């Protein structure tokens, strides 16, 4: 199903499987450290094999695919923008992904400044002096692309790993 040679993406939400059936005793959750173990070892290998820029690009692209599927399967795309953001905030909170907050928005231009606190990917990481939430950048872009039908540039400007207390993303439509 998954491991054949190809150039297109085929991930479906159903590929996540029936977790309730598969993990009747351990349940659907795990530790954040386990998630990070997977992400950062994968990133390490990607960097060593393909370089930093390519690795970052792969993580952004994967995040975008995840965001798109997340939006398709867990969010109501019929809602108005404010209600959609409220639902997204609630969903990210209930799934323990992070605390999404909006700092600024210009609906006419579709430009936003978002913050994510207690982020799944980075909050609590040692000080690295650089932003690391490439996957989050893609995730946000994927959600907004699927909701609006437009492509977005999402840039992380502050990150826990760069020494800030919250991750801050500038979002604007792709030119």
């Amino acid at each position, binding site marked *: 199903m998954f491991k054949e040679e190809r150039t297109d993406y085929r991930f479906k939400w159903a590929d996540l499987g029936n977790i309730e059936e598969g993990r009747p005793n351990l349940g659907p959750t795990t530790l954040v450290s386990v998630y990070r173990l997977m992400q950062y070892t994968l990133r390490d290998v990607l960097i060593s094999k393909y370089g930093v820029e390519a690795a970052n690009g792969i993580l952004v692209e994967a995040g975008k695919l995840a965001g798109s599927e997340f939006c398709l399967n867990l969010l109501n795309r019929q809602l108005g923008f*404010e*209600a959609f*953001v*409220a*639902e997204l*905030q*609630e969903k990210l*909170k209930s799934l323990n992904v992070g*605390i999404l*907050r*909006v*700092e*600024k*928005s210009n609906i006419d231009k579709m430009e936003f*400044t978002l*913050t994510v*606190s207690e982020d799944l990917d980075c909050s609590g990481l040692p000080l690295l*002096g650089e932003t690391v939430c490439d996957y989050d950048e893609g995730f946000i872009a994927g959600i907004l692309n699927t909701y609006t039908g437009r492509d977005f540039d999402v840039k992380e400007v*502050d990150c826990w790993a*760069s*020494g*800030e*207390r*919250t991750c*801050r993303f500038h979002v604007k439509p792709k030119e």
Partner: protein
Amino acid sequence: MSTLDQATEAILSLLRGQTPNVLLEDDVCDREDLARLFQATNALIKGFAEAQDFIFALSQGVLNVDPPHRNFLVSSFKDLHAHLRHLTWQTQQVARGDLSQRVDFLGDFSEAFNTMIEALREKRLIEKELQRANEQLREAHAQIIDSLQYGRTIQTAFLPNREEMAAHLDDFFVIWKPKDVIGGDIYRFNSIADRFLIAVIDCTGHGVPGSIMTMIAGSSLDEARRNVGLHDPAAVLQELNRIVKRALNQHHSESPSDDGLDIGICSVDPEAGRVVFSGAKIALYCCVNGEVREIKGDKQPIGYKRSNVSHRYTNHMITIDSPMSLYMTTDGLLHQIGGSRGFPFGKRRFIRFLIDHWAKPMGQQQALLEQALESYRGDEPQVDDITVLGFTIAGRRGRRHEP
């Protein structure tokens, strides 16, 4: 000052809340340990200066400054800054009417904000309910008005034909002015050969109940007239009383209706110059040669449980030798509140009006009376239905107003 003293003084300045000048690292380039001390002190001075600017802006409520990057002196303030920016955005959303937002993990403020949003949501629900109820009321009101307007069409059609009246009367006017769209006043006109019967009726109430009563009163009067003829108005009233009481089942003590009417009725033989008037609480005003004579109706009304069905109403015979103007009015005119002291228009004022204007053409009298009434009423609302009927009989000696 020694290099160590410079560094010490710089740190003490920072502790006093003052930003010192950056230390010149060239002064200690020959000592690696002192150079590191100067670099660290300068980094502290820079971080302190950034922190001071940022915190000052924050204390002034200025949120559009970006927090200094990689500055750990103000980590908690950066959190506060981010929270305040978010809360500002949330508040702007609420001001725009978006009540889907909520605040999480901001301690007491979260609870207060979310409680406020919940209260606003409830208020919006109540407003929507009120708006819906208001729309239903408006719709119901429109239906009622439509219904009343159609009722007015029917009630107006029930009134006498003016052309028929004009064919029998030398000159006349009618003021028919219900308090609402429809009302409890009515006037009637019937003619047989050269004789005619003219009546003014004031039924119980006004609006819809009053108008229903006018239908009963009008058709009952027609029936009474058919039963006893035109010549004897008192007999017509007695018959009318019987018919109305029967129509409203007032001969049964348990009948819910205790309604009735006042009426003034004239049987007129113009050629003979003779008018027979009978009234039930409505008077006839006869004007001739500048004098007004009021002929009061009986105190016995028509209908109502208390009226006596055996009561013989009084006929008043008026012989008209010279042109005479005759008037009947319902109490809506006489009881209309107005003037500087809010007194009723009153009978004396009405008689005064008749003395002044009785000889004028009836159309002119109508205009003057309406003008006098409106002027007297001023800003007061109309208190009751108003009907005034005036007509002229030329009398046996000839006609006063040529057609």
